Structures are given as C-alpha cells and as structure tokens.
C-alpha cells in the first residue's frame, strides 16, 4: 500500500464500508463470556501427513480477533464468542487448557495424538496469547505427536513456531486464507491480507520445519454458486502449488449470527452453498498433490450448506468419507433428483439473480 492508486483508494473505501457495517452489526450482540472457559472442545479424526489421527480440538477463548474488533470478515461470527473487553489473562488461558484436558479424559480413552488449537483469531498473535502462555501451552502438549495452531499470516514467525518444535511436536499452522483470489478475499470477505502474505507465512513455517494447513471459504457473499465453485478449485490449485502447504480445509459458509452474511440471508440475498458444490470441488481437485478435506458445519440446515433436505445426510457422510480416503469414488454412490436442480443453478445463477433456488 505504499503507492496510493485509485485501486487502493477504492479498496480502502470498500474496507471502510465493510468494517463500519460489521461493527454496527456486531454491536447488536450483547452476550458475554467467561474468561476461564474454552469456547468449545471436541474430538474427531483428521487426515494428517502422518495418516488419520485422533485429534483433540480446542477453541480457546482469547481476547478475540483483532481484525474482527475493527469490523472484520463479513461471514465471521466467532468474535461473538470472545471475551468482552479484550485480553484474557495467562492464568485464565491455562485454566481453559485444563478444562479442555479434563473433557478429553472424559470423552476419550488416552490422549489424542494430535491437538488443534483455534482462537477465533490468531494463536500466534502475542496480544491474544502472550509468549509466556504460548510456551506453557506447548509444554503442556509436549506428549503429543502433532499440534495445529490457528493464525493470520502476519503472525507466523519461525521463532514462535520453535516453541512447539522444541517439544518435538510436528507443527502445522492453520491459516484462514479463505480464497487464493485477492479480489474476493478483500471485497467479498473483507479480509485484509494478500495471497503473497500467505506464501510468505508458508515460507516461515517451512523454515521452522512446520507445515501449513490452508482454510478456505466455500461461497463468500456476492458470488454465484458457479463463481464460488470456480474460486475454490483455482484456490486449491494455487495453495497446492505453495511449498509447505500440504493440506487444504475447505469450509462451506454457514450463516453465523451478527454478521453481514446473516443480514443478506435474512433479506433473501444469500444462500449457503449446495453440498453438491462441495462434492464438485473435492472431485475436481482429488488428483492434486495436496490433501483436501471439508467438514460442512450445519449441513442440511437453511443456515448451513445444504441440498434438498432429502439427501443432505448421505452427501455429508460421503464427504467425511472422502476426507479420510481422498478418493473421488466415494461420491459415485450418492445420487438425488436435486442434482438436476443444482446443475440448473450452476448453469443459470448470476450474482444479480442469486439465490435462484433455496
């Protein structure tokens, strides 16, 4: 942004408008949260470079995403789950880890081999998670095989990653890239960084002998179904071509509370993607030299990715199967009459006529 240009000026105007609107929308939320409780804890299986591993996922309640406080991304409601007023103390964050470990003991036999820590922000942002806390948490999980931590690319730094590598943890940084297309990331999602920043973060990770897992957003607002599909396919291709990025997690947009996407959804201007579109993208990219997984949240509901209501569970099962096997053939058996409707939508829906079908 060193050279002021009309393009940059326009982009700034767009960003200002998005931020202003998102601040207003978020202000309607008056819920607050306890600082010593993690937002969410669950256990599932993940396809990692070491094969399928059992995996403990912790959504830490940190001060929340710095960007979201300025307004932030048009689809992201997670800031609502962060603590009011800013920073969470070292002790509280560790208390959240303890609670998560306790829950793991209750839910699971033995410790999971992988741990994933999300913060609805950046775990590597020291304003959210101070260095001291990061070190303590790395130690606490030193007995595991792998760790994944979420961060915006700005904060990815080989020295911070070293905290985990010193514990001999194989480390991945989860980066919410959303799309490889800068234009879509800026204008539709209102996420400020560029693909080049993502590439730089991958380089940092590689330098620390860590990997990167790119998180992509399937169907941001303002895109038609077919534009969203194309954007995902090209994004996965571009991510796969970046050294260090070994996995892509494609997240179909779900309508979260207190977001611009929700406002569009309420007024009839947004429909989450079809599960067939997820299937399409996974099939089209199955041959690429990058692991692609997708875990559609809220599948089958109006607010989540969905098909016709008849086939949603079956298609979701096939997608989960694909996540573990990475084989296009898992979709061969899933059929439904609504595929023809989806085909029509793909063919006919334009950004000015969306949504063409519910």
């Amino acid at each position, binding site marked *: 942004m060193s050279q002021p240009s009309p393009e940059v000026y326009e982009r700034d105007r767009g960003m200002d408008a998005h931020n202003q609107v998102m601040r207003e929308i978020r202000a309607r939320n008056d819920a607050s949260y306890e600082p010593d409780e993690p937002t969410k804890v669950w256990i599932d299986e993940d396809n990692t470079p070491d094969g399928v591993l059992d995996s403990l996922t912790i959504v830490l309640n940190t001060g929340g995403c710095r960007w979201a406080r300025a307004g932030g991304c048009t689809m992201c409601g997670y800031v609502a789950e962060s603590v009011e007023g800013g920073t969470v103390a070292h002790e509280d964050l560790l208390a959240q880890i303890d609670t998560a470990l306790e829950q793991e003991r209750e839910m699971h036999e033995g410790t999971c081999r992988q741990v994933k820590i999300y913060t609805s922000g950046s775990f590597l942002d020291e304003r959210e998670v101070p260095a001291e806390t990061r070190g303590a948490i790395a130690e606490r999980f030193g007995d595991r095989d792998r760790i994944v931590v979420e961060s915006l690319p700005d904060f990815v730094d080989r020295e911070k990653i070293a905290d985990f590598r010193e514990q001999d943890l194989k480390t991945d940084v989860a980066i919410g890239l959303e799309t490889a297309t800068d234009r879509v990331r800026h204008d539709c999602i209102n996420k400020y960084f560029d693909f080049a920043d993502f590439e730089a973060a991958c380089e940092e990770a590689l330098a620390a002998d860590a990997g990167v897992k790119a998180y992509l957003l399937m169907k941001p607002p*303002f895109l038609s179904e077919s534009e969203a599909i*194309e*954007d995902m396919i090209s994004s996965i291709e571009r991510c796969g071509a970046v050294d260090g990025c070994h996995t892509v997690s494609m997240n179909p947009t779900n309508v979260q509370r207190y977001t611009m996407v929700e406002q*569009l959804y*309420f*007024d009839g201007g947004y429909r989450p993607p079809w599960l067939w579109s997820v299937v399409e993208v996974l099939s089209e990219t199955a041959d690429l030299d990058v692991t692609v997984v997708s875990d559609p949240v809220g599948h089958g509901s109006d607010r989540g990715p969905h098909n016709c209501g008849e086939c949603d569970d079956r298609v979701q099962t096939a997608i989960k199967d694909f996540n573990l096997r990475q084989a296009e053939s898992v979709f061969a058996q899933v059929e439904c009459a609504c595929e023809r409707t989806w085909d029509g939508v793909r063919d006919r829906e*334009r950004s*000015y006529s969306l949504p063409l*079908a519910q």
Partner: protein
Amino acid sequence: MTEYFEVIDRDGAARIGDLRLADSLTTPALLDDVLEEAGSLWSDEQAVPDGDESTLSVLPHRAFPAGTPAEVQAAFEPNYPDVAFPSAAVVSPETAADQGTDAYVLAGASGFTGHSAAFVEAITSTRESIPPDAGLYLPGIATPGNVATLAYIGADLFDTDRAVIRGTQGWYLTSDGEYRLDDLEELPCACEACQQRIETFDREDCVEHNVATLKAELRTVRNRIRQGRLRDYLEGQARHEQWLTATMRRLDDQYAYLEQRTPLVRKSEITAASAETLDRVEIQRFAERVTERYQCRFDTPLVLLPCSASKPYSDSQSHSQFQDAINFRAHVASMTSPIGVVPQELELTYPAQHYDSVVTGRWSATEVEFVADVLESYLEANDYPRVIAHIPEDYQAITERVEERLGETFEYTVTDHPTTDESLENLAATLAGEPKYRKRERQHNAIRAIADYQFGAGAGEAIFDDLQVESFHPKLRAKADNGEQLAAMVPEYGVLSLTLAGARRWIDSDVPTKRVEIDDFVPHGSVLAPGILDADESIRVGDEVVFEGPSALAVGRANMSGPEMAGSTRGIASDIRHVTER
C-alpha cells in the same frame, strides 16, 4: 442514452417495447437467447465486452443482493462505460440511476419476490430512477403465475431461470399458481410436453411445460397491454397467489406512480368485477375530477338516476323513458358503481361509457361508501334547489346516508321500480311547473363541463368564453363568436380536441396549460422524444398538449406522460393534429 430499446405502447405502468437487436424482440419478453454477460467484478477484473447487435450485453458489474448495506453499495458501485452496442447495467433499488444503457438488470429481485411491500417499493423506486424508455429486467423470478403482475408494475424483461429450476424441483407452474407434480392426477395443459399420461411425465417434462406456459402467459400479457386491459386480467389472475394480490393492492396505494402512467382515455372497456376496481386510477381520477373540477351550470333541480347496462346511459331504454318524463326540466346525474356520480354532460367521458359491471342489485359496503362519498362531495360543490332521487330501492342505502350527512331531504319518486308507469308519472309530476332549459344551453354546458373535466376547474369559461355550438350531440363543434373553430367533441372518449385557435385560448387563459417545449423544427404527424426539450409534469397519455418551439406552435394528443417525454430519448411522444410555423 437509450438506443436499442423503445416503448411502443403503454397500459398504465406496463408497456409494449421493442428491444431493437438484429432480430427485434417485442417486450415484455424472455431474454434467454439474447443475453450476453461480461461477468461480475466481485470475482475478477472484467474486460468491457466487444458487444454486438444481435445480443444484449450485461456490462461488467457488481451486483448487490437483497440485504446489502447501503454503505457497502456506495463503496463498491462500479462505473459503467459508454458503449455503442446494446447494453445493460446492473443496479439495485438503492443505486439505480441513468447509466446510459438500453436496459437495467435489477439485482436482488429474488430477495423481494414474495414480499409485496418490499417488492413494490423496490420496483417502483428503480423504475423511477432509470430512464423511462429503458428496459427493466427482473432476473431469475418470472413464473407463469407472477409475470403478469411483474409486467403490470413496469418490468419489461425476464428469463426462464425460475421456471426451469422449479421444474427440476417437481413444481408444475401455471398461471393459476404452482402445483406439486406429485399432487396432480391429470395434466391440465395443452402444451406439447403435457400430451402424455401423467405417469410418464417426469421433471424434465415439467421443465418443458413450465417454460412453454411462461411463454404463453407472456403472449397473454402482451395482448392485454395492447388492448389496454392488463389490469382487468390481473384483478382475476392475481387472486391465485396472495402476494400477487397484495402487490396489486399495494401498488394501488402508490397512486402517484400509477396515476402518472395511466391514460386519460382508452378505447377498451373496464371490467368492474372485483373490489379492487374501485381503486383503479381511472375510477379515482374520474371521481376526483367530477367532485373537484366539474361545476353544474344548470339552475334546475337535480334528478338522480340509476345507471343502465347499455352506455351511454341516454341511449338506454330506461333512460329514454326517464328523459321523456323529465323533459328538460332537470339536470340528470347517474349513480353507479364503480364510477360514482356521472353528470349528464360527462356520460360519454372515459370511463363513464367504458365499463361493464357485475349487476346483482346487491351493493358491497365499500361500493355504498364510495358512491356515497362521491355524491356527498358532488352535492357540496353544486347547489341545487331540489334533489329528486328517482332510484330503485337498492340505491337508497346510498342516498339516505348522504341525506343524513348533509342534513338535506331528497324527494323520492319511485314506487316498486323506476320504469313502472306509476314511477315515471311521479317523476313527471314532481317536476310540474319547473321551466325547461333549451337545447343550446344543454350543448354549451356540455362543452364547458368537458373542458372543466379535461383542462381544470373554470376552463369552461376560460377557454370557451364566447361560444357557438354546431352539429349534433355527440359530435358537437365549438366555435368562437367570430366563427373560428376552437374544438370538437370526440364521441368515443367524451373529450375535446382543440384546434390551434383553441390551443391559443388555452395558452392565454389562467388554466394551467399542458405545454411541451420543442427544439427548432416544425413537427408533422408526430413529435419524437429526442425533439423535446421539456414537458409539463402533469401531462398524461391522452391529454391535449400544446407544443411550442422557435419555429412552430402545434397541438396534439400525448402518447407519453410529461415525465416520460422529458426523460426519453426514443419513441413517439405525441401525435400532432394541427401545426403552424412561426
């Protein structure tokens, strides 16, 4: 500037248009085969297309779906390039403005569809913000059930997207709504796809049927617009879906929008068969002008009569019996639903002889209220020495209400039925001793009353101060004392057409003149929109209009409203009757 679209004919807000591509397309129409899309700027940079005359190119755009905050729209609104080929810009109700394109794509229409208040607001505000001679395209929403309403509100261009998608979902669309294919036991349609047993009729057939039915419905819509009878169709057809009926009603509440687009006169008849007929602009406008512009110039008693099925009333058997009994000793006004009150001088004036209502002798509360309101205002504005009500029993609910409100007493002359000998004798007897007025008075009053109605209160005297009348009712000619003809009555519409001398008097009078300023040329036959510099906002289709320019003075009948004349770059603005160079 609109180059490749032209409005040919109008019926209220609905229009017959011509999308002037290599193969011209008569609208309202489907765009599927001729639409080319340059792409969305949300997903990528897009080059301005080369375009060509066989297609309508949607220029690179950023569409704002329903619910997009205004700030975001303002920040991301793109600029549209000037291009020399048929083109369309994408707008939202918030961003709609003149972009110099031939057509406008309304983004987010699928969000408003089904919500009558938001829909009417979105479409009317968009229509008002884009040039009147540009096509309005509502993408992704047309169905056989709603397309008549969409055209009625002022949209020109549609596509088959919704009809196709609904077909793939197993919805069988008709002009009377949509059915789940599984719920049908027979195929109620004559289209090609439906010529088979329902057992073999699948969703692909349903798609084909939906598209065929949408096309057929558009043919109905176009015919109705050409006939000036789309509203009559809609009052029946829109019943099948609640939101469409609600849309029609809410649009009636947007009176200014509809009034500006509704012609002063029409050849076709109004079918008065639903409660909404009373809300039609034509009906409201007539009642408004009768109560606010008309003044009775007779000083005789008033006889209130029931309307007759045949029009004009005076040609009917019943009214000629009444006239025999009255024998020019009273002024006559007919009471009717849905028109209200029709003074005898205006019985030819649209829509007084152009409606046909459902007659059962049972009045709805709304009809009673409407006619009573009009009669009350009418009697407040006009002073009669006596009011004689020669009406059947079912009309008395109205007159009694008015008597009560005005604190007046009418004289009732009907026993049993108005045309019985006894009733007619009563009517004649009650007028015994009243002086007869003369034919010339009747003719002068007719010309002046129509002038009031057409040009404004007081126009009768202002334009026809000195007056001589020639020929016979209803083809009267109005002349000045010096023998110069000023106007002629048009029997089909009951309005006056002015000569240049009449037009000069109108210009010189205190009555507001409907004036159009034209460029430096002498019009012959018609005036085209590009020749117009400015036009009085009050001009309506069918109005007498005076054209003034550096080289010419002319008078004619408007084909467009004033705002449409001023805002259009294509189309015939008016026919010219008389012109003189100056």
